[in-house]
């Protein structure tokens, strides 16, 4: 049986456009609003990444850090994220969910219990920032057993040989980090260079759905639209921060921003 993630990509391919993948942090700015945000952006996106915030995120730049700290300050607990997904999945236009976070939270929760609760809530994929290959082999296998995608990351520093091995152990989706940076950095590499690396990955295995993330904003998204998917995270988190500062409603703000992003890649 094809996974929800695979089906989402196939649908986009038929429509001749990349998948738009959002990233927002669970409980940011609070429990209720993070659900509302997800619901409001759902019509524009194809997959939703949801972050479980961690106090010491070494891979994240200031925008996602701000969102994470805000969520933790507002009392985020791991059980909240499963509650959020369950609620979200009840809506009939819900999109496949990918959980993203740091290994300490999973380790603490217990890998098996975490996967069980993911399955129960209806999670389709998992990205773990600081559990690289081959350290993730065991966990990735467990995910597969539960029919949950473990999404491997590739970076500009990943050697070709390593890429091949990682892709061999990957499931339906692979995440390419566009540049040497934490999340939310200014895109300092040309789209052409990024797409060259992207094609290298596709040449290793063209059946994998390869998405590009890091540094994707309304300004940078368009030239990358030939990819299978594009992840927009820090830009959304920053929008939440900004609208809170200006006393605007982040829900309607994000709705607009995602609508715009989608239009740029049609």
């Amino acid at each position: 049986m094809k996974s929800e993630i695979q089906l989402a990509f196939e649908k986009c391919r038929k429509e001749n456009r990349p998948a738009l993948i959002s990233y927002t942090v669970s409980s940011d700015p609070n429990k209720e609003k993070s659900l509302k945000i997800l619901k409001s952006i759902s019509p524009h996106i194809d997959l939703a990444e949801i972050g479980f915030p961690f106090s010491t995120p070494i891979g994240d730049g200031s925008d996602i850090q701000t969102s994470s700290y805000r969520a933790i300050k507002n009392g985020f607990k791991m059980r909240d994220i499963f509650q959020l997904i369950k609620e979200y999945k009840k809506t009939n236009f819900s999109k496949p969910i990918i959980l993203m976070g740091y290994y300490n939270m999973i380790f603490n929760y217990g890998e098996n219990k975490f996967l069980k609760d993911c399955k129960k809530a209806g999670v389709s994929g998992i990205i773990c920032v600081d559990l690289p290959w081959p350290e993730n082999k065991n966990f990735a296998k467990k995910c597969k057993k539960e029919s949950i995608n473990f999404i491997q990351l590739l970076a500009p520093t990943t050697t070709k040989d390593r890429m091949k091995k990682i892709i061999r152990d990957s499931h339906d989706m692979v995440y390419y980090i566009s540049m040497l940076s934490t999340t939310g950095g200014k895109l300092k590499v040309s789209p052409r260079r990024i797409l060259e690396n992207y094609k290298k990955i596709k040449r290793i295995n063209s059946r994998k759905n390869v998405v590009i993330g890091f540094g994707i904003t309304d300004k940078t998204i368009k030239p990358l639209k030939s990819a299978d998917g594009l992840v927009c995270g820090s830009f959304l988190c920053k929008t939440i921060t900004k609208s809170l500062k200006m006393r605007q409603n982040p829900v309607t703000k994000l709705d607009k921003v995602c609508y715009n992003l989608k239009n740029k890649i049609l």
Partner: protein
Amino acid sequence: MSLKIKKGIPLIDQHDKNGMWGGKFGGSFVPETLKKPIEDLEKLFSKLRKDKSFIKERDYYFKNYVGSPTPLIPLNQITDHLGGAQIWAKVVSENPGTAHKIYNAIVHCLIAKRAGKKFVCGDTGAGMAGKTLAMVAKKFGLKCKIFMGVKDIKRQKPNVDAMKKFGAEVVPVTSGSQTLIDAVSECMRYWVSNCLKSHLVVGSTVGPNIFVKICGYSTSQISRELIVQIKDEFGKIPRRLKLLNVCGGGSSSYGFWSSFMDYDKRQVEFVGIEAGGPKKSKLHAAPLTNNSKIGILHGAAQYVIQDKDGQIGLTDSISAGLDYSGISPLHCFLKDTKRARYTSATDEEALSAYKLVSSMENISPSLEPAHAFAEAIKIAPKLSKDTVIIVNSCGDSYKDRDIIKKRLGSYIR
């Protein structure tokens, strides 16, 4: 994997193929971007360790620049005052940079040179690692960036001034608790973005496996000197020897103990003293003493202060250098194998130990080693006269003069 220390092999090399000690501490839990730079560093370091010219160069700088060995001195006044065990100090604070941090800084700068890197970046808590790295980088012609929490910049100003004097850029870290833990995070983030041109210097035996190893390899110089000095002084290793060392990240204590690892613990006991924090506070920086759970922090599995959910917990200590939620995987392993014993001293105990040592003896330990002196003061009266306690006095009090003045009314040197 069995929880047993092997004899004849440095502890830093007793990890499995995943980089873990005892199958559960350490490892390299890093973002994919850092995998390649870390692998390159691992390869280079394992090559350099066997390279005679590299070792010669290291030893040259240890001897002529650091001025090894640092003195081992008896603290006769305190010994007489307390009665009981003989108390000695290994005065590592005599080093340039007034701490043990210079060994790690030199080795890292030598590696950076061989790797063809022109930039080094490092984290610092008390500013000892930062100051020393700035100094050594300048000597080796490397540009240097130091990440330091804003709270620490305020409380350790003399060291910040020194870093700037040596030409380093001090990057204030405003995230989280604005102390060492956030400085380490921010420094790692910087390295993620700049891993091709700059070399990362983790300031203690923490972080991904390779940084634990390089730091432990470097600070081992302390016990290499000490074992010779003890034999010179006593003719042999005393029948009852206790090596007391403060533990923040754990670099000085690992270095202070490593050459004695294979001795029976009934003969050579290791005592690690963590930061107990303010007497009346629940906060501390003592994950080993207080049986914290295992977690993953800054790329390594370790005992770490965290809440039920896995969020890293806040710490509190009068010593900026100890204000860290985690602890070296090496010490987690030493705890579980029971080779070392861990305890803690409060801020107040450290302050009064500082006062006693500085007023009675010719040394003035910083508040970090003052934690270890506090334990010596506690246990010495109960021990026999043929017991030898050696405390690693691994930092000088000058950097703490403002805090000491505020807390004790006056600063004694």
